[in-house]
């Protein structure tokens, strides 16, 4: 079972790398949705492999599919549709980092995640692939930093949240259910509010161009 977890963790990193290299926003949303389903599958397998613990991992898996796999991508896609006539063509033309650079930085970050884990937590936790959530977290940070498109930045933030779900389930056997439920509610609220803000922001940029840099400096 441990190897299955490692394969799923590896898949999640691959999907995040694909998000890093993708320029079309709707495809980034789709990739996030698929990676959320993988997280849910991960939680189900975790629940099966730890029968003594409780059923909460299954509930968490269900909530992950419902909110991160379905509702959030639907909200983001609808926001995209309401703003653009051809939402499937919305893309980030000039990412801050090119594909070559992002491959290099991504690989470095995976190594950094592994190094940090091995030298700080492995001794205590004794889980061989526990570095996967850390690597995923760093990938997500890169996605936020290296992109200017607000939708893609939001996806980066959501991948971070997925990394935390994975971390809490795999490495630390979950958080109390009331905290998990509160976090999911907050996440949903944040996505709704962010969609509104992104929509107004993008339409303002379409009409006026980027004019904010000077006033928000210093």
């Amino acid at each position, binding site marked *: 079972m441990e190897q299955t977890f490692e394969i799923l963790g590896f898949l999640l990193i691959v999907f995040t790398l694909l998000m890093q290299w993708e320029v079309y926003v709707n495809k980034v949303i789709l990739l996030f949705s698929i990676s959320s389903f993988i997280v849910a599958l991960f939680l189900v397998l975790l629940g099966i492999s730890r029968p003594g613990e409780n059923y909460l991992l299954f509930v968490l898996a269900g909530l992950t599919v419902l909110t991160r796999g379905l509702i959030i991508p639907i909200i983001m896609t609808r926001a995209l549709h309401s703003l653009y006539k051809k939402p499937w063509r919305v893309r980030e033309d000039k990412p801050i980092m090119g594909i070559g650079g992002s491959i290099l930085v991504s690989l470095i970050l995976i190594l950094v995640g592994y190094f940090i884990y091995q030298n700080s937590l492995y001794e205590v936790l004794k889980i061989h692939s526990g570095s996967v959530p850390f690597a995923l977290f760093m990938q997500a940070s890169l996605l936020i930093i290296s992109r200017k498109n607000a939708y893609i930045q939001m996806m980066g*933030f959501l991948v971070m949240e997925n990394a935390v779900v994975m971390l809490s389930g795999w490495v630390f056997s979950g958080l*109390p259910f009331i905290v998990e439920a509160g*976090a999911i509610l907050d996440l949903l609220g944040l996505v709704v509010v*962010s969609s509104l*803000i992104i929509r107004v*922001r993008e339409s303002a940029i379409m009409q006026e161009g980027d*004019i904010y840099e000077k*006033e928000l400096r*210093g």
Partner: protein
Amino acid sequence: MIMENTIYSLPLICSLTGALLCLLPIRSFERIASIAASVAALGSVIYLFSREDIISDIYHIDGLSKLLLLTIGILYLSTVLYSLAYLKHIHNPLFKNRMYYFLLNLFASSMFFSVSMDNIGLIWVGIEATTVTSALLVATENDQITIESAWRYVIIVSTGLVISLIATTFLYGASGSLSIASLMQNHPNNRVFLLGILLGLIGFGTKAGIFPMHTWLPDVHGKAPAPVSAIFSGVLLPVALYAMARLIQIYDVPVVKIFSITLGALTVGVASLMITVQNNYKRMFAYSSMENMGMILIGFALGKYGLIGSVIIIISHGLAKSSAFYLTGNILSVYKSTNLQDVHGLIRRMPATGFTLFFTSMAVTGAPPFAIFIGELFIFREFVHQYNWAIALLLILFLAIAFIAVNVRTGRMIFVGKEPEGPREFRAETWVPIINLLLSVAVIFLIPYLEKLLINFI
């Protein structure tokens, strides 16, 4: 028992009810509902002072929580009152007034929630909820720059809070509990737990405007409507600091203290230097808030007199800085600019605003005999007692830089320049910052009482 304890949720219930009432489709009812809710919330907070501290499975309301609840209650009411007049000056709002008051009430309730809970995970949920409820409030004025600052707020603060969620996971993984009370009594002494505490300090520090994750703060304070900037600076930042204080309280070991003091000192240093290059008076006051948050964090880390000093600064800074931001609203509505160069002769054009701003500016920068000065004295006393004079002197130097930079700039706006065109103005809403400033001064008389309230913490 449960019903009896529900009394401790009254501030939360009042503000939530106020939010729901704002949704009723009755003309201007949202104003009445918000005033009633904020008065009721403040009344219930004052009533809680007559009750015993409570530490149960759900609540953790001790002296520190009560003082935070009181500050939130006062600023909630004053922000509602100031908003009644200020919203008229917003010409192209993002949404109707009904939505503004709905969000404001929800925002207050999420802060009440955050400082009442015994569970670190639920405190995280409450603080994240403050982001959800306040992001749109920041964007109220609906221009591209405001929207951009709201977006930066959402993405930077949420990312920071993910770090504190990881921290929560670490704490729970290491100890099997998230209860503040039980963690204070019994916690593991291993690397995972320590890492959880340190990550928590960084994560919650993002929301509190602590270096290095502070970059959202000047953008938001510079562009949000004046009442929103006021409540952000006055209580939102301290609510995040409250979470940090609890983490320090749980794991009071030298490495955590030194880490917190370093973060606090860097925050004071960076904020003080940034103040000197500001041309925007709202951003200038935002950096001043950051500087005060740095001092509060240092006080929390030091404990004892440092802690009392921090609490004095939280209350008096909350009142005085909110007063400063309300006054920036007055200025902006007349001068139509946030640039320091465009505002002059304030004392002749808007005498009440000018005079109050002068004293407010002195108060927030720690001029004697205002309460922030006393709070800083307490912190320095403890600092010198535990460490040495050299670092304390460096901090005093930074505070002096901030003091001079803020007061010289504010003084220029108030006293320098010819009388601008237009009639002299006095606005009824100016009473709100005047009263807050007076309350800020009155904090000095609370100091003996504070020591009694915080006795368990010290």
